[in-house]
């Protein structure tokens, strides 16, 4: 059965030191700004490839990733770049990936949010097929359990992905083996154009946890601390040998499935409601202001930093060369050493 978490945000005692709360707000603001600017560049035809906006879901992404240690592993989807940014990915290299440049985390081999940084921030390089990283997360968790250390794996996927067989296999396997893994479902209420009722027949996703004999929790993705608290609880449980948990974080996908999608299938009232009442960035900003953790000035300063960092990263990305054509044929087998040496930087093309 799904158990509603008592929103810690309402409590007087704060879940984290002020510095970390401030940091969390900064991350939320960064993710929001990055998302808005990248989408704008996409619409102007200045951003190649695809763009999947995670706007409105930053509470889920930042709340979940904040509950992880740097050596815990994260298995995200195309929608979860904000979670990867929270985990620590470098803005410059992220943007270099969008522009297909050699300094991108995947050296230009993949684009957009199909990104990852295993050795640096322990994030799995996103793959399209949904939710194909879920079974992989079981494996990382298995390794932690075997090693007897207290690391954990956290995987995110969307509401629509829960109807896929891989989702079931991974949850079931993690329960049978009692693996240290946390399953987060970013229920943004749509799978591309499909609303929840087209994807599953239960009122919530959290209640499905019972079918695996694991706890299931449903939280408000508009409240980052509510998400953080629930995920932290699940993470602690996993670290201490308590096995897997499922967390459903509910929000709304504010934008289309990807940059090209006007999402005319979404009811304007619904969007209106979420943008006004469940904006994770606005809500948290107001909370910290009311708590006196930050001042209006702090926020303005942080905003300026973010804009500056974005511009710098954008410039870096555009200045980064394309991969050399010959690189296309390297890096399949470990033996050719492509991934252990610095890549050539002589690529040149005006494509994109």
């Amino acid at each position, binding site marked *: 059965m799904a158990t509603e978490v008592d929103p810690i945000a309402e409590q007087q005692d704060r879940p984290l030191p002020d510095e970390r709360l401030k940091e969390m707000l900064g991350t939320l603001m960064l993710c929001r700004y990055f998302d808005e600017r990248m989408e704008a560049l996409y619409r102007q035809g200045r951003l*190649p490839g695809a763009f999947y906006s995670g706007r409105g879901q930053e509470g889920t992404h930042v709340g979940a990733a904040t509950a992880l240690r740097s050596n815990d592993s994260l298995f995200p989807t195309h929608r979860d770049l904000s979670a990867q940014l929270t985990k620590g990915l470098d803005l410059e290299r992220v943007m270099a990936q969008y522009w297909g440049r050699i300094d991108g985390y995947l050296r*230009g081999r993949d684009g957009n949010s199909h990104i990852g940084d295993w050795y640096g921030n322990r994030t799995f390089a996103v793959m*399209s097929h949904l939710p194909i990283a879920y079974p992989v997360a079981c494996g990382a968790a298995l390794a932690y359990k075997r090693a007897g250390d207290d690391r954990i794996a956290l995987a995110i996927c969307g509401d629509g992905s829960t109807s896929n067989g891989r989702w079931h296999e991974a949850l079931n396997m993690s329960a049978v083996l009692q693996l240290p893994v946390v399953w987060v479902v970013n229920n943004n209420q749509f799978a591309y154009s499909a609303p929840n009722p087209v994807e599953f027949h239960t009122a919530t996703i959290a209640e499905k946890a019972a079918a695996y004999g694991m706890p299931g929790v449903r939280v408000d993705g508009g409240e980052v601390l509510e998400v953080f608290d629930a995920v932290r609880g699940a993470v602690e449980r996993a670290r201490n040998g308590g096995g897997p948990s499922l967390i459903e974080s509910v929000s709304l996908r504010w934008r289309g499935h990807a940059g090209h999608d006007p999402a005319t299938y979404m009811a304007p009232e619904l969007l209106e409601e979420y943008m006004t009442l469940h904006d994770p960035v606005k809500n948290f900003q107001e909370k910290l202001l009311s708590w006196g953790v930050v001042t209006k000035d702090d926020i303005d300063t942080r905003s300026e930093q973010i804009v500056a960092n974005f511009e710098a990263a954008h410039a870096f990305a555009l200045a980064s060369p*394309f991969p050399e054509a010959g690189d296309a044929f390297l890096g399949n087998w470990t033996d050719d050493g492509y991934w252990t040496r610095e890549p050539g930087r002589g690529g040149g093309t005006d494509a994109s």
Partner: protein
Amino acid sequence: MTADPKVEVAAAGHGAEPRGKRGEDGQATYLIAIAEALWEEMERDERVYMLGEDIGAYGGAFKVTEGFMDRFGADRVMDTPIAEETIVGMAVGSAMEGLRPVAEFQYADFMTSGFDEITTVLSRYHYRAGVPLPVVLRGPSGGGVRASSFHSINPEPWFAYAGGLKIMCPAFPSDAKGLLKSAIRDDNPTMFLEHKWLYRRIKEQVSTDPDVTVPIGKAAVKREGTDLTIVTYGAMVHKALEAAETLEAKGVSAEVVDLRTVYPLDEETVLRSIEKTSRALVLYESYKFLGIGSEVAAIIAEQAFEHLDAPVMRLAPPNLPVPFSPSLEDAFLPQVADIEAAADRLAAW
């Protein structure tokens, strides 16, 4: 999900039937031709229905089924959960009970997510148990649109190996429309791969006669030539034709054979052309190792040996994930210049 926003935004008007989306000149793009085939077959036979992700209200990731739900209703234009194994399984089960399902995969890349139901159930059932399965699986395949590894694959060799599916990879709007209609009318399982690079790039006059079809399993000579034969299919047909022009200028006369159907393969048309030109360049976008061209080359080596004046030459991408960066993808896929160079070497052999 789409390769090029500019192109996607250019998706035709909402709710209109495909015919209405042809250009001023009455020409139909590859995409519109496919939509027309689906529309006409849905009109012709009410046992035909479509299922897939986002094909209903949304009209499909590439807008191929736009307007269909308004006309045919949600029962015949079914939106499904993200469950490819079960989409295929449902198609099979409903076909066993007399329906004629056309399942759309948002990208042909996701056919691997339904691989077992396709190759174990759909492909084998009639041979084992004698129940016809008139199922069509369709989806956008192929690269060249900067969509990277997970949105650019050419899966036809995987499914051809299974042996129980007829597989089409048309290069022209007319062939696409005629073959898709044949596929829907065929009592055997078929796979219809739509090269997404062609969707809106290629257009031509396409018959409006709902009964004009193109036979499955027949290749076509798209350009006559005498010095060598380029055997190819899909998007590469257009690169081959472009290269043939330049080669002509250089005095090399290249014949271009478009396989159109990759399984079963039209050996006769291929062999007849080789008998004429005595030189074969097999060009394909599926990976080089065990791509469709491997079989074509083997067939030529086996059955046209006496006619060959030079080795069978192959041009295809390596068996690697299709990379995103333009500099990488351009090096990865055979380009017109590569075809010319290969043809020159072959002609000079």
